[in-house]
């Protein structure tokens, strides 16, 4: 058990930026909202999944919508409203909240209703990274129902989707409702049990994010290498090091797709690494050979500062280090790969885990 407070929020957000693998959007507003909620209502208790009582009711909350709209109609208390709506619909009171993903602003979304209600947050999430769509959560891969779910806007409108034939249908319907709500909304999913959380969530990711952020911030302050600090905190390896030579961006079917090419420096002089992304970094090829694919994490960080570089901030000349971190085990099973493997994203290649 530990406490998420004003002092460690920056570290959590930075670590979540690294684990966001280029996606999850700019975490500035998410962090600012969580900071404001904690400032007004006090810090949030973070429970280890082992500390959950057996009769726990754990509700997953998250944001849904367009990041480009979220910087203008800044999210308010929608996750609190969605939480109340699902509690009322199911007749079950939440005893803890959980993040839907550990990348970008969604990683800290539950901290806002948690600070306001006094509920604890579980040290776990539904992705162990970031993914673009609602259905791409380990919870649903391993049999937790995605419905009923509630969606709320800032005006007082709430919608409960009571039943869908698949999690992908829940994404489709929730997305359409979100558009009518002004493209910024939050959702809450019917409670999970403690057993379901321990079995289907990616565990201890909030502390991992905090530890990663801490390691980078401490290394910077001491003038040490932040990249080494990251790899000293979690398993992973350097895939490449160089400077961005080209970024090619296009928006298709509602996603920011594109590719970047990195020209090697130092140990990688004369070599080239190409990454393709769809909101998140999906596949990395070194001189044409695939070296890392989803669901393994391809993290691009500033070589000097260790700051995560999200896909919208990529640009020519940046000195970056590309890290490969092994995917959570829940993603590397046939069931996991069927939902978030390279073929789901249109790559004609099988998943081959990075060798550490």
């Amino acid at each position: 058990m530990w406490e998420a407070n004003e002092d460690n929020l920056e570290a959590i957000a930075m670590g979540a930026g690294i684990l966001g693998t280029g996606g999850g959007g700019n975490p500035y507003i998410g962090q600012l909202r969580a900071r404001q909620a904690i400032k007004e209502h006090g810090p949030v208790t973070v429970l280890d999944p082992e500390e959950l009582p057996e009769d726990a009711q754990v509700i997953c909350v998250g944001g849904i919508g367009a990041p480009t709209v979220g910087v203008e109609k800044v999210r308010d208390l929608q996750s609190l409203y969605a939480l109340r709506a699902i509690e009322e619909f199911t007749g079950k009171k939440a005893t803890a909240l959980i993040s839907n993903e550990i990348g970008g602003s969604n990683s800290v979304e539950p901290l806002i209703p948690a600070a306001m209600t006094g509920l604890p947050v579980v040290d776990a999430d539904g992705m162990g990274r970031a993914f673009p769509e609602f259905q791409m959560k380990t919870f649903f891969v391993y049999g937790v129902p995605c419905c009923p779910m509630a969606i709320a806007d800032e005006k007082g409108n709430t919608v409960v989707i009571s039943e869908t034939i698949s999690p992908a249908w829940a994404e489709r319907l929730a997305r359409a409702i979100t558009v009518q709500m002004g493209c910024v909304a939050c959702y809450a999913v019917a409670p999970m049990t403690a057993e379901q959380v321990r079995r289907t969530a990616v565990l201890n990711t909030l502390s991992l994010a905090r530890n990663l952020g801490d390691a980078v911030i401490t290394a910077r302050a001491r003038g040490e290498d932040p990249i080494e600090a990251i790899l000293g905190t979690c398993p992973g390896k350097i895939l490449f090091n160089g400077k961005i030579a080209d970024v090619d961006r296009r928006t298709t079917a509602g996603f920011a797709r594109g590719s970047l090419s990195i020209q090697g420096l130092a140990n990688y002089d004369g070599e080239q690494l190409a990454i393709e992304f769809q909101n998140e970094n999906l596949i990395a090829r070194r001189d044409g050979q695939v070296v890392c694919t989803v669901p393994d994490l391809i993290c691009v960080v500033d070589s000097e500062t260790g700051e995560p570089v999200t896909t919208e901030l990529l640009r020519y000349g940046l000195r970056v280090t590309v890290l490969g971190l092994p995917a959570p085990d829940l993603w590397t099973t046939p069931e996991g790969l069927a939902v978030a493997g390279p073929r789901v994203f249109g790559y004609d290649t099988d998943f081959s885990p990075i060798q550490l």
Partner: protein
Amino acid sequence: MFIGVDVGGTNTDAVLMDGVKLLAKAKLSTTPDVTEGIVAALTEVLAQRPSDGTVDGVMVGTTHFTNALLERRQLTPTAVVRLCLPATTLLPPLVDWPGPLRDAIGGFTYMVPGGHEFDGREISSFDASKVADAAKEMLRQGVRAVAISGVFSPVNPAHEIEAAAVISRVAPGLKITLSHENGRIGLLERENAAVLNACLGDVAARTIQGIQDAIRSLGLESPLYMSQNDGTLMDAGFAARFPVLTLSSGPTNSMRGAAFLSGVRDGIVVDVGGTSTDVGALVKGFPREAAVAVSIAGVRTNFRMPDVLSIPLGGGSVIQDNPLRIGPDSVGYRLTEEALVFGGGTLTGTDVAVAGGLAQVGDSALVQELAHSFVEQATLEIQHRIETAIDQVKVSATDVPVVLVGGGRILADNSLSGASHVLRPEHGDVANAIGAAIAQVGGQVERVYSLESTSRQEALAEARAEAINKAVAAGAKRDTVEVVEIDEVPLTYLPSNATLVRVKAVGDLAQSR
């Protein structure tokens, strides 16, 4: 003829230009009351004015307003009204401001119903009585300026305009800034820029009036223009309304001046000063703008700012041996007392340049005892830092022309890697004042269009026409105005084919050149 003036933290520079010809230049110390330094610099260049010469305009670039924010001096007590309810309440106006700056302007904030969705629908209806209540409260608090922001006001500014009408009726004395008139999508950043603009109202009015009086006192009838951070000019009246647009105009002017002096339109400008070196990219003769949020005095904004990389390296940088350490501290304006070549006791970048034979300044005999290997090592390190900065700023991997300007440019060698060739134009030491003198005027539009209800062609035509009108409103001659930049950003996740369109138009000043 035009006179260009750059008022920096250390120096006030002035140039007198006849078309593309430089007739006179002056470099004087900046004075605490900036107008004194301006008068001195103007007097010096005017002394060399040809007898038949008429001055058509005085163009001034200044960091004075930036300094007012940094020092929190002379700021106007300012309120913020946000049209948003019931949205965005968790992050009220001024939420992430440095406490002392928020206190300096009073910290009065109001959230009222209004604002729009991304597609132009209302979040809630405008409520005139709520705005009127806020205005009455502002009067009681002694507020003298107000910034009005509305959610998605760049898409639909109606509520901001209605709120301004109510406030000017209830509290006629208040100076009003509307967020949609400048700034981009990004509520907090656009609102912050509007607040910065509002709180600079008094100091801007006073300074601009002071400069105008100074010009008149020298017998000049010429109009005054102020430099904007995007390299264009605005007339004095417009500048007094939008002082926030002058922030960061210094690096822009030196880049524009460098482009003019060297003839380079696309390339890299390296401006080496006394304490720092600014490196920026020129695209079609204009500085490339920053894509990410820029912080001014600790306040996040999304203003049009040149994308300049500043590194702590300059002619006054203090250098230590064993291990080699260059900067970040600098002797600054005390260079001519403290540097070795001037008889001082501090080893500086200038001393290394003189010892290495790159420059002849002061007395080279005073640096003869420096070890040759050390001078070589320091020179290489300086070179390396400049080359790294150039490489970070470049827009593509190909070698590009590099223009060296600024008083400290003696530090750099002509063989910079990444450069197709290195230019050191004559008068590069006053590139910033020249940049002010030759600036054009421009207008910019940024708006989200739904390409379902409007065709792309119609949307672009509308945006182009509005940018051109804005340029003309800012003082441009209509037949010289051209659109220099069209940027379309399809918005991820949005339905109805929403696209962010950004158009910039520039033209010559409506005066004889």
